[in-house]
């Protein structure tokens, strides 16, 4: 080996790296070595460094060379690729529901034999969900991998819900779309302004109107501190949605939706961080049964988690759409 130029051995080592695990690796490297030495000697006047360099350059980059020897068998067959995200989203929806149950009912439980759901708070749940999504994606990918490797024609069911990304077509009519966006933006701006006005007048936007005919002042639903914090977060969400619609007038980029989704998720996260126990003011508690108040608190929490799920699905959909456009898959 010592009499061979170093550039050739380095080149072969790089190819060898990409061929690791193949039994015939040494044989393949010998074939390439023989060819390059032959070419260098015949076409470039010898087997010196410069001649070898030229022959190596003509043979191609190591990874490309190695890939020609690798089987084209895909990890997941093209026929099953579309199932990957569809099945993952179904699995993740179930996972999210179980997480919501664990959070709302403050209980740990086992879905035999697959899953152990520990009792967790809202913050823990938010930290847990991304990991759950990756685990679901991995589990589905593993099943599809085994089906692909089996080589059998397994007909997997294709559950339909909502609109398929494959069938998604952008809305026709440029000006009609712009007009609808403009109307939406103005309505959202009006709602944001109204919310700000109510906040400045009552210190909260969550109010209970006991009897509208007697035009009494409304009673705040929540305790002052919590009411103000929750109001500010909701107004921030309204403002973010308004801004998104105004930006949408100038660009149809899906990145606008991605940023909007991320902002919404952050704000929902902030909402969920607020304690939901002892949220209502005594005046409200005295008017309703404790059971009703308890139900209202739980409903509010479930509603927020549902909104978070919807925003997450929209975020994933937008990222997939960007990925499809970028990589043309």
């Amino acid at each position, binding site marked *: 080996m010592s009499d061979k130029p170093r550039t050739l051995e380095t080149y072969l080592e790089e190819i060898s790296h990409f061929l690791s695990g193949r039994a015939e690796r040494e044989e393949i490297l010998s*074939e390439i070595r*023989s*060819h390059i030495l*032959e*070419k260098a*000697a015949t076409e470039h006047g010898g087997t010196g460094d410069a001649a070898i360099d030229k022959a190596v350059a*003509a*043979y*191609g980059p190591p990874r490309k060379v190695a890939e*020609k020897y690798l089987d084209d068998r895909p990890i997941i067959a093209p026929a099953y690729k579309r199932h990957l995200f569809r099945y993952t989203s179904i699995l993740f929806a179930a996972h999210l529901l179980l997480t919501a149950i664990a959070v709302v009912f403050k209980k740990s439980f086992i879905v035999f034999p697959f899953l152990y759901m520990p009792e967790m708070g809202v913050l823990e749940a938010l930290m847990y969900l991304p990991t759950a999504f990756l685990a679901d994606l991995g589990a589905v990918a593993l099943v599809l991998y085994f089906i692909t490797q089996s080589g059998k024609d397994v007909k997997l069911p294709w559950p339909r819900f909502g609109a398929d990304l494959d069938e998604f077509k952008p809305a026709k009519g440029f000006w009609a779309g712009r007009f609808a966006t403009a109307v939406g933006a103005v309505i959202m701006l009006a709602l944001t302004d109204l919310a700000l006005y109510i906040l400045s007048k009552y210190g909260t936007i969550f109010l209970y109107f006991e009897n509208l005919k007697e035009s009494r002042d409304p009673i705040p639903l929540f305790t002052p501190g919590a009411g103000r914090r929750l109001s500010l977060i909701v107004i921030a969400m309204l403002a973010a949605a308004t801004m998104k619609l105004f930006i949408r007038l100038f660009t149809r980029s899906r990145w606008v939706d991605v940023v909007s989704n991320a902002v919404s998720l952050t704000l929902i996260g902030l909402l969920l961080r607020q304690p939901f126990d002892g949220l209502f003011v005594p005046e409200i508690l005295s008017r309703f049964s404790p059971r009703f108040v308890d139900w209202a608190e739980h409903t509010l929490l479930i509603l927020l988690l549902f909104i978070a799920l919807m925003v997450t699905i929209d975020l994933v959909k937008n990222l997939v759409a960007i990925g499809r456009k970028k990589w043309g898959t």
Partner: protein
Amino acid sequence: MTGPEIGTLETEMNRGFLHILALALLEKDMYGYSMAKLIEGLGYRVEENTLYPLLRRLEKHGWIASKWDVSEDRPRKFYSITPEGRALRAALLEVWNKQDRILDEITKENTDVR
């Protein structure tokens, strides 16, 4: 049609052609480099890094056989066709001729097809 589009389709067409070409050339024992040069001399070109994996696949199926010759300064791997390879070549040539005949008939009937 743009260049890259032709390139992709040409690669697909070449895949089958290269199998017949290699099986036809190996009626006489040859090593990889000499095959590439001979093909080049005939006015065709095969990428060097494509030829060896193709020969490996043919050998894996038993259509060609190989042996190293270490009598010279540089070791060379010689390939030769097997009886199974000859049978395959005959079948592939039959397909090739049939396709050629069909295209020929179409171009004779429709002078626009050029």
